[in-house]
């Protein structure tokens, strides 16, 4: 189905190869995993297989890439897409239409399929993927798990033969991840060839037949999934764990143990137009000196909760107390810090150092630079001080936006999915940073589906939905 022989690929204007002498073969009904540190060439491999490299990204490709018996270099992307379906990390990026039904129809319309046949195909997919409830929904209204399912249904409806999945579990909660693994298992049995590229490994043990570890664009180790059992191998290549320990205990509302911290009292909130409140008279404590995981399914209000605690959204009733004093909403943003998911929206300046100095605007001018330097040391960003923030890698950007949130010296720092798409090494850096902040007496709330991070860093968890 897929055959790669000595494939090397170099992006335009780059001297270093992104992929170097990669060879592998995949037959129908097989599933393989490619993993490795961030920047090891996993996404480039996906682009080489689906033809985006070199047809869209240009660059230089050497070696032989063959899909379904045809040489990819001699085919256009549309033609390769008949054999290869791709599922991106953020499925929203691959949606072209704005509602589910139209999205599922779109690729068929482009291929000239009659409207009767499209209707038939869609109804089959709706039945198979249980999409009946969301078929007329807007794409933006779906949960991450539903988006992933719609994207997968759209891909499968084209009967591609090969399915490529780039970090499919990065935005999914554990339930949705389990469901995805189940769906992929079914597709594998039907004869689909499946290529998965992912950092998170715990959900793949029963699914993949072979594992390839990439480093600097080369396959450095391959074998059955059991090669990942060896902790030395995982440590050497910066990989994550293959199993997940049970989650830490839940933060109790009545816990008297915590002397200092924030108290959310009687929080009530509903979005405009929704008669049902998302939070109804919620009371809980957020203690200082702890890293607390905020867990729960997609769409249960975790990010909304963070925005209410930081004053970005206004509660319809309730207050936030610090040491028995109510903090007005306008003061909340000064005392709290929140780092949202997409780092691109949060970086503005010419250099990493300038970004931190500007973020330290509340401090006296004389000490801003010194503070920025200390924070850079803490986050391992010192060597990148002169780099443009938008030119950094995903993990480096993530550390920089957290550093910018931290330089404000907030009492509570809230991180929304800080390790989405990060490898084991970067995840550990972020985990160590959170623990260190808690040791300094801060409260760190981490909204995450990353069970490995939660187990590594968090002492308690708050489960959503909050009653």
């Amino acid at each position: 189905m897929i055959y790669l022989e000595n494939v090397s690929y170099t992006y335009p204007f780059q001297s270093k190869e992104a992929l170097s002498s990669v060879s592998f073969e995949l037959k129908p009904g097989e599933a393989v995993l490619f993993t490795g540190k961030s920047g090891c060439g996993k996404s480039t491999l996906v682009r080489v297989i689906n033809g985006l490299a070199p047809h869209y990204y240009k660059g230089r490709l050497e070696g032989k890439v063959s899909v379904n018996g045809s040489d990819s270099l001699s085919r256009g992307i549309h033609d390769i897409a008949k054999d290869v379906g791709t599922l991106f990390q953020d499925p929203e990026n691959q949606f072209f239409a704005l509602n589910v039904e139209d999205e599922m129809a779109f690729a068929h319309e482009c291929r000239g399929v009659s409207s009767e046949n499209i209707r038939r195909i869609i109804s089959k997919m709706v039945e198979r993927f249980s999409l009946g409830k969301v078929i007329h929904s807007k794409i933006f209204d779906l949960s991450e798990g539903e988006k992933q399912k719609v994207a997968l249904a759209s891909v499968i409806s084209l009967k591609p033969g090969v399915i490529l999945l780039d970090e499919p579990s990065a935005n999914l909660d554990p339930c949705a991840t389990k469901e995805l693994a189940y769906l992929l298992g079914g597709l594998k049995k039907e004869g689909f060839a499946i290529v998965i590229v992912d950092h998170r490994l715990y959900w793949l043990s029963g699914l993949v037949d072979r594992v390839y570890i990439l480093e600097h664009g080369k396959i450095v180790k391959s074998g059955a999934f059991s090669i990942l059992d060896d902790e030395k191998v995982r440590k050497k290549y910066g990989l994550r764990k293959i199993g997940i320990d049970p989650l830490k205990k839940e933060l109790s509302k009545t816990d008297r143990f915590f002397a200092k911290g924030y108290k959310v009292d009687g929080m009530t909130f509903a979005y405009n137009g929704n008669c049902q409140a998302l939070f109804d008279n919620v009371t809980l404590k957020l203690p200082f000196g702890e890293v607390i995981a905020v867990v729960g399914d997609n769409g249960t209000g975790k990010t909304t909760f963070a925005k209410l605690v930081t004053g970005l959204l206004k509660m319809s009733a309730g207050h936030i107390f610090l040491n028995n004093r109510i903090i007005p909403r306008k003061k909340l943003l000064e005392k709290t810090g929140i780092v949202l998911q997409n780092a691109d929206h949060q970086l503005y300046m010419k250099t990493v150092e300038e970004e931190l100095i500007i973020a330290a605007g509340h401090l006296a001018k004389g000490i801003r630079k010194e503070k920025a330097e200390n924070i850079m040391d803490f986050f391992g960003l010192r060597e990148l001080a002169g780099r443009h923030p938008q030119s950094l890698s995903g993990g480096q950007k993530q550390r920089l936006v957290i550093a910018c949130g931290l330089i404000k010296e907030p009492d509570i720092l809230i991180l929304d999915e800080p390790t989405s798409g990060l490898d084991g090494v970067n995840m550990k850096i972020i985990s160590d940073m959170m623990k260190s902040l808690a040791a300094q007496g801060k409260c760190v709330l981490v909204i995450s589906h990353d069970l490995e991070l939660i187990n590594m860093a968090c002492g308690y968890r708050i489960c959503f939905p909050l009653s």
Partner: protein
Amino acid sequence: MRVLSGNDLTKYSTGLRCRLDARTKMVICLAASVAVIPLKGIIPLSILLLASTIYALFHIRIRIIFVCWSAVLLMGATALLCLKIMTVFWPEIGKVDIFIFFVPFFRVAVLVNVILPLALSSHIQDILTSLKSFCLPLFIYLPGVVMVRFIPSFINDIKLISESLKIRGYRINPVAFSLHPIRTTRLLFVPMVVRALRASDELSVAAELKGIGYAGEMTFYRTNKFSYPDYIAGVTAILLLFASFLFEYKDAILS
């Protein structure tokens, strides 16, 4: 901009506003844009301005129209101020007919009145289907579709950028622009440009993988249908355009 960001339109689905087909709104837009180019007279332009204002009021909230008109008025007032300053230093310019001066702004106001209803009261999916149903060549249709699809992603990005600025405590207001013009411009535009580039790249990749540039003929899963309000709107638009041109060229016609 709720409609452009793909939000639910059900609240607006009754009445004339959503009953007009997206194609009708597009054609009205196109006809008005072309018609205002040769028109210069106060009566013909006033006819179009009045008619387009009524059309806009049927489709969007008066507050939105008011904000847009205020922006046009501000542009006009700024231009007039600049002109007055110029006449002080360069008296040869002479006295300017105030109506002639404001003709371009009349045209802009008409365009605002016809474009806003298309942008703010149509489902993007309808616009996409309409573009397809016009059977335009691929080199016109493809960029058109990508542009239309780009709008909700871009608006979503702007929302996130403004939220991020608020979190960091950066204020984007006239005072900030006056005190730190370069920094404030950078805060606003750097993430916007970066996100716009990324979003357009992502959409192009999605389009390629879906086979949007496939050489074969496309089919239509949905088809839009005209109804009687479309015919009424179409006929009214033709009559109004005819009347405007009649007033503009009545001297030439009578002689």
